[in-house]
């Protein structure tokens, strides 16, 4: 078996005197899809931001194929190129066209030729059904289209791992599907991913492993079937209950 893509050991993250992540240990293997779920404020976004070195960490270590990921490391930009991140709010660059958004980092950071980057960008755009939007500007796209462009932008850097932070949370219901389908497609291609989501159906379909995070610790982890069918902890049961609806009828 090959080395893990990502190794997190005893990660501690504090904001002031609030400890948001307490001793997180997690290993992600090549091609694995990890879904992280948990109540609001439990530290899911913070975990992804630490993995991408957008936050300084106070303890433990994060390694990407053996290389240390740290906000203070000197080759920070080099490491970040190898990690793709997609945010809830897309964060396309408003002053650049769709195509320029996608090829900015490949050409400026990876110094690839414009032609080659363009070719790949267009091929990726076709795959997500947005080939004809290449010359549009972000403001001319719907939320779901923007999010698909953001995913393509991350993909075009050939990252070794992709991080998704509630990428459908800001979308209208009818656009959620088109974005989730793209992510499912990536899972089928064997991409290594960590996905934070509140879409439980999707989580179950896409995950190889589910992590239940609460109050900054991994309370439970397991296969999707096991986690959703028979969660081990009370807290996970309670959490999953918030996604089901029942009517309490007094009579039949």
């Amino acid at each position, binding site marked *: 078996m090959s080395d893990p893509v990502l190794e997190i050991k005893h990660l501690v993250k504090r904001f002031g005197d609030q400890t948001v992540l307490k001793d997180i240990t997690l290993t992600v293997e090549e091609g694995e899809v990890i879904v992280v779920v948990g109540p609001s404020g439990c530290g899911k976004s913070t975990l992804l931001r630490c993995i*991408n070195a*957008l936050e300084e960490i106070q303890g433990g270590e994060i390694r990407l194929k053996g290389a240390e990921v740290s906000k203070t490391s000197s080759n*920070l*930009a*080099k490491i*970040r*190129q*190898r*990690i*793709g*991140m997609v*945010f809830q*709010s897309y*964060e396309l*660059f*408003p*002053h650049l066209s769709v195509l320029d958004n996608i090829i*900015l*980092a490949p050409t*400026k*950071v*990876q110094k690839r030729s414009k032609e080659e980057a363009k070719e790949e960008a267009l091929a990726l755009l076709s795959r997500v059904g947005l080939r004809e939007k290449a010359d549009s500007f*972000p*403001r001319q796209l719907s939320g779901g289209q923007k999010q698909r462009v953001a995913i393509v*932008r*991350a993909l075009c*850097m050939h990252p070794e791992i992709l991080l998704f932070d509630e990428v459908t949370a800001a979308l209208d219901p009818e656009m959620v599907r088109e974005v989730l389908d793209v992510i499912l497609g990536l899972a089928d291609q064997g991409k290594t991913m960590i996905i934070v989501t509140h879409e439980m159906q999707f989580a179950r379909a896409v995950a190889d492993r589910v992590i239940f995070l609460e109050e900054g610790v991994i309370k439970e982890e397991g296969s999707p079937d096991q986690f959703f069918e028979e969660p081990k902890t009370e807290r996970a049961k309670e959490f999953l209950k918030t996604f089901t609806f029942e009517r309490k009828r007094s009579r039949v």
Partner: protein
Amino acid sequence: MNWDFIMKYLPLYRKAAVLTVKIGTAGILLSVVIGLVCVAVQYFKIPVIREITTAYIEISRNTPLLIQLFFIYYGLPKIGIRTNAAACGVAGLAFLGGSYMAEAFRSGIDAVETIQMESAYSLGLNRWQTLRYVVFPQALSISMPAFMANIIFLLKETSVFSAISLMDLMFTAKDLIGLYYQTTESLFLLVVFYLLILLPVSLVGSLVERRLRYAGFGT
């Protein structure tokens, strides 16, 4: 209104206007450079130099141009630096304008959301590339109204140049009034020439702003 007088001295005003525009342009270009350097120093948090730029911005913004000009014009020779009035005019305008431009650019940079930068960082762009390709283009269009207002402000400020005996528009008007007492005509010409300089700038300014609004970044 004495039209003969006006026709006679029109060329003199034209010459003065050219001088005003030349010094104004040079001073404004320099202030843009100074402004850019100041915001870059503050963006990259370069120690010591950063404190110096902050001090410069405070001094420059809180003293009148006239006094800045006197310092340059009468002060520099005292410490052995020989210069001429035109160079002093450019330097004075740049000293004043640099801080105004810095503030305009800074407010533009501040308006770009942190998560835009994080988005760039997460693609592997370094701080410089993020500034150059992501932050600055957005900041520039945000600060465009303030930038255009600064240009007009600085062009108007050139009217104090006469104090260091630069033969600009103001100097010419004062001179003619002193010599011939043709106050109305002299001032009329002064106003007309300032308008001739400022109105086109103002027009370009509103065109640029309208373009930016239509090509706006709104999501």
